[in-house]
């Protein structure tokens, strides 16, 4: 006879294991037919409305349905069994064995101490990062994604790169083409402004990621501005080239 413990099968969820038996608790408010005792529902041992037995396949067989209100749950709250006579064999069911009882592993004071020290340390640095840190303080940077308050009447900017290839074609350079996300590129924009030659690194990244396509001779940083009015896009936008890099060095 297999013991199916709670949680191994969804069907058994409502039943308490009792050795190889299962007790289903009476619903809250159900009353005993003989004495009128009211069930407080789950968590009130001693008030069961059905007892089941499990066979080797893990299937449940209903043993008895009725008058089980006064079934005592052996080993629980010190109640000893006065099993109902209709429950054949109930009192013979083995009490839960010691192996089924949860056991708590001990943790030495020193092990607790270093864990507490680490917790306090990491929490303090994280708080510091939030209040005074910058992005460069990662992993303790402030949690600032979407933290800026964007004005309701200023245009929403979206940056993209356009390139001119050796063949003279104008193409859109996607993030994956240069190995950088849009936001990363936007983050480095001030650097590019200061030192335009740095954009040559973007052209090189493009060559590495697109070895079979013609190289770029020019890269334009294009900002698309979507107009906002009281937080509502006016459907109007315009593109502006804010930065241009040319391979031959001309501006």
């Amino acid at each position, binding site marked *: 006879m297999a013991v199916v413990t709670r949680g*191994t099968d969804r069907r058994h969820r409502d039943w308490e294991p009792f050795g190889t038996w299962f007790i289903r608790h009476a619903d809250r408010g159900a009353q005993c037919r003989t004495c009128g005792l009211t069930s407080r529902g789950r968590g009130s041992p001693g008030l069961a409305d059905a007892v089941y037995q499990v066979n080797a396949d893990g299937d449940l067989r209903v043993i008895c349905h009725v008058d089980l209100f006064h079934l005592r749950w052996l080993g629980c709250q010190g109640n000893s069994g006065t099993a109902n006579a209709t429950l054949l064999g109930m009192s013979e069911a083995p009490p839960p064995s010691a192996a089924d009882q949860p056991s708590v592993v001990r943790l030495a004071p020193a092990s607790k101490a270093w864990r507490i020290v680490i917790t306090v340390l990491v929490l303090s640095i994280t708080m510091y990062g939030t209040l005074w840190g910058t992005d460069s303080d990662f992993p303790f940077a402030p949690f600032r994604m979407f*933290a800026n308050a964007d004005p309701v009447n200023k245009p929403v900017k979206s940056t993209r790169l356009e390139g001119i290839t050796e063949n003279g074609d104008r193409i859109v350079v996607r993030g994956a083409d240069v190995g950088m996300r849009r936001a990363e590129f936007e983050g480095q924009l001030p650097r590019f402004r200061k030192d335009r030659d740095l954009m040559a690194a973007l052209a090189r990244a493009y060559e590495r990621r697109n070895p079979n396509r013609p190289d770029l001779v020019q890269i334009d940083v294009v900002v698309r501005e979507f107009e906002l009015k009281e937080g*509502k896009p006016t459907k109007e936008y315009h593109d502006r080239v804010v930065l241009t890099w040319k391979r031959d060095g001309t501006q």
Partner: protein
Amino acid sequence: MNPIEAIVNWFFRPIPLGRIAALRTLAYLFIPVDLLVSASWVVQHKDVPTELYLPLNFTDVIPWPTPTHAVVVTVFAALLILCIPAALNIAPRLLGWPLAILYFEWMVIAMSYGKVDHDRFGYMILLFVLPTIGKAKWGDTKTLSPAAGWAVVVTQIGVVCTYFLAAWAKLRFGGIDWVNSATITRAVVRRGTFFSEWMLDYPWMLRASQYGIFAFEMLSPIVLFLKPRWQVFAVIGFYLFHVVVYATITIIFLPHLVAMAAFLPLEKVRPIVWLRSRFSRLRVATAQ
């Protein structure tokens, strides 16, 4: 019990080791998902010339390798190889420590090019605390461990920080007026979807969602102190919140969602056992 003792005990409430085993499988199986799908952009940094690498501040103190092509590819491969045995609960400490450090390095590679994300705080904490616990068996609900309790609680704190400290960052960078700003409008303009773009015509809805987000983030620490049963309900609510965010602005904090599973009684989730019992029953049925 004095208050300090009570706080210490709160950190070390014993939990079943089965939860740690399940969290290991989940956390380590997520590594390939993250590397190949949810953050597949990180590996592209291998092709970015190192002039565009912006070293993080901690590398002033701790010497740290510049992410050259070779470094990025090596870390990528090592993560993909080590995570498989680790997900199977093999050598949890021996594999867990290198995985935590390698993933941290992966995040350094990710965040050193001009944009820093904050969606992985809880997940990184989870990776660093998992190897502080020894062997754990799947489905072990009987062995309760205070060390496992600490690991789970600090991961939960990391998850809550991601919300709570994001609210503080909003106060710091956006000011209290953040709730009335066009931040979500901007997000929808830049990365909106079918589910959200119509809302651009009703700015008050987007503004209301900002009030909701701010309140939710500020109140999120409450979840730490709920009874386990209510924690489960709250966390299901959190998951739904992220689904809605994904549907509207195509942003999903997947690693954060993995770490959030630390709130759930994962020790009771036994997919392989369920499948096996389903099959054995099927076999009995066909034999008859």
